[in-house]
């Protein structure tokens, strides 16, 4: 009985740690979708790019982790700003499908460039917390997981403050609700959208830098985009708190399915959840209900 409880506690902690990463990725995708209505399939590849850049900076340039984090974050943020300003902005006004195709194309290009630039082999690097565990109420928790949870909490709180309290954040909200009205009120919508991309890029970079030591630095990390999509749908499309809740839930569901359900169900659980939620309750947990407009 006790061991069963211990396993449950362990699995729950793991689920929350993985879910925190999903939540971070999901928030990045939701940010961009809210602002520009583009579903960014290249988000996972930005994450891969940041993981590889971090690895290269730590291993080849020998920089300390604390320097790499802001460097890569700013670099990827600038890249994301450029992506929107130069490429993605051009398809405004075209059907949503064009945005999907364009970001898939960008994803392919980033992935190709990463495997050309860094090679296709899996890599790994250490963080200041690698290999250490803390005893938390009888459950051994990897320090890295705790740090990840803390970072995600911090970012979520930061975003909440940013969108609620700052001038720029309110302007971004306005632009995401109605671009024309925001523009008429003196908000420079184009620059703001690019800034949102940059913000999302920074979250992708942070997610990549912290996810890579958990698994490996590998191009297949981009698949996290799909799990983040499941999280977004579960939480409610276009809702930042929803993305966090959905991410945590998907992480938990995945871990529980791996332990308590038959073999292989761990890999499909997030996608089954995605399908079921979309069919039964398309607006998810926290999504707003939209009327159907003709």
């Amino acid at each position, binding site marked *: 009985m006790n061991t069963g409880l211990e396993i449950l506690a362990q699995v729950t902690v793991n689920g929350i740690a993985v879910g925190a990463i999903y939540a971070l990725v999901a928030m990045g995708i939701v940010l961009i979708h809210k602002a520009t*209505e583009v*579903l960014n399939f290249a988000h996972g590849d930005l994450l891969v790019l940041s993981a590889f850049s971090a690895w290269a900076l730590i291993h080849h340039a020998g920089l300390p982790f604390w320097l790499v984090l802001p460097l890569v974050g700013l670099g990827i943020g600038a890249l994301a700003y450029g992506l929107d300003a130069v*490429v993605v902005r*051009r*398809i*405004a*006004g*075209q*059907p*949503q*499908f*064009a945005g*999907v*195709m*364009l970001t*898939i*194309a*960008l*994803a*392919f*290009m*980033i*992935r*190709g*460039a*990463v*495997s*050309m630039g860094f*090679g*296709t082999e899996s890599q790994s690097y250490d963080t200041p917390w690698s290999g250490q565990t803390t005893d938390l109420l009888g459950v051994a928790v990897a320090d890295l997981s705790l740090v990840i949870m803390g970072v995600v909490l911090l970012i979520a709180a930061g975003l909440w403050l940013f969108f609620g309290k700052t001038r720029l954040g309110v302007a971004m909200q306005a632009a995401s609700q109605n*671009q*024309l009205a925001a523009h008429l009120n003196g908000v420079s919508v184009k620059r703001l959208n690019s800034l949102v991309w940059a913000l999302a890029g920074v979250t992708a970079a942070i997610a990549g830098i912290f996810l890579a030591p958990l698994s490996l630095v590998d191009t297949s990390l981009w698949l996290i985009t*799909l799990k983040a*999509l*499941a999280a977004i*749908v579960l939480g409610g*499309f*276009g809702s930042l708190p929803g993305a966090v809740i959905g991410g945590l839930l998907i992480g938990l569901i995945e871990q529980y399915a791996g332990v308590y359900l038959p*073999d*292989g169900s761990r*890999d*499909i659980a997030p*996608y*089954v959840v*995605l*399908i079921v939620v*979309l*069919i039964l309750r*398309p607006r998810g947990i926290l999504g707003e209900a*939209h*009327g*159907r*407009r*003709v």
Partner: protein
Amino acid sequence: MRYDYHTRYRHGFALLRHRSDWIAYGLLALVLLAIPLFASTYLVGELGYVLILCVASMGLMVLTGFTGQVSLGHASFVAIGAYAHAWLMAQGVPFALSMPLAGLIAAAAGLVVGIPAIRVSGLYLAMVTLAFAIVVEQIIGMWRGVTGGFMGMLVETPRLMGYSLGAPRVFYYVCLFVAALVLLALANLMRSGIGRAFTGVRDSEAAAFSLGIEVNRVKIYAFGLSAGITGLAGALMAHHIGYLTPDAFTLLLSLDLVLMVVIGGIGSLRGAILGAVLISLLPNAVSALKALLPESVARQSGLEIFVAGLVLALFVLFEPTGLNGRWLKLRLLVETFPLYRRDTFRRQKAYMKSERNR
């Protein structure tokens, strides 16, 4: 410039309207029929594969191009068709019967996926199909009794009335036959009531509904038809690969199919074929390109996917109507020379339009 002068009622809806069309398509057919007589076995095999992809791409075109329903998971229907065909053949069902059955099984799966399409649309549908494809891929890997799991499954040599169709040169004709049949069937279907209903649903669901088209039913039909055709392509693919494993039907194949449809040009069968040809020849073009590049760049493996992404991005940005649109423009240029006006196809300035409230 050419003006149509109809002397009979049927002229108005002939598939090939002009003598020049007859000559052009006749020549194309002759070339396609004659290729195995002089080309190398490798080339014939590759061309057979291109034809299979053409069938799959036409299948997706029915759904995405004509009905406007996005699917990012069509590899699952290819996989279902391939495995159903291989399994039926292993049970002793003859080749000629097993292929249509495989198509029907894939169509049934398509109907099942079509049901959520009633409730969700746009991005949501893209995600449902994406998730479905991943689930199917995993299930195939786990269902060892039928599919052989990740170990794979051998596909038997196709036989028709005692003759083996396994040799690449013979199998090429099988592919050509199926591709031509599907093309003809779709070209005719798109001019029939149900085909017009597909296009109506794509252009405006509300307008289609108010004209008495049962939108939900049409969407499900489109899914079934599209999945069935893609399943046929899957059955052919099974023979082309020879040994089925789940790795052959990953997300990349789904995305490749979408690439074909988008690059070819949404809403035209010619586009589906042109797109399939371009995408399937792209790897060859890239390896030819590698010969020109310095050694250090050419050895890297990411170039193929980079070029595929670049081509897709350029098409989405600069030629949203795809290869078919480019073809139509070129044709108009030749036909109206020297009176071609560039502005005929100028794109209007577009503004951000929210699709959030659909």
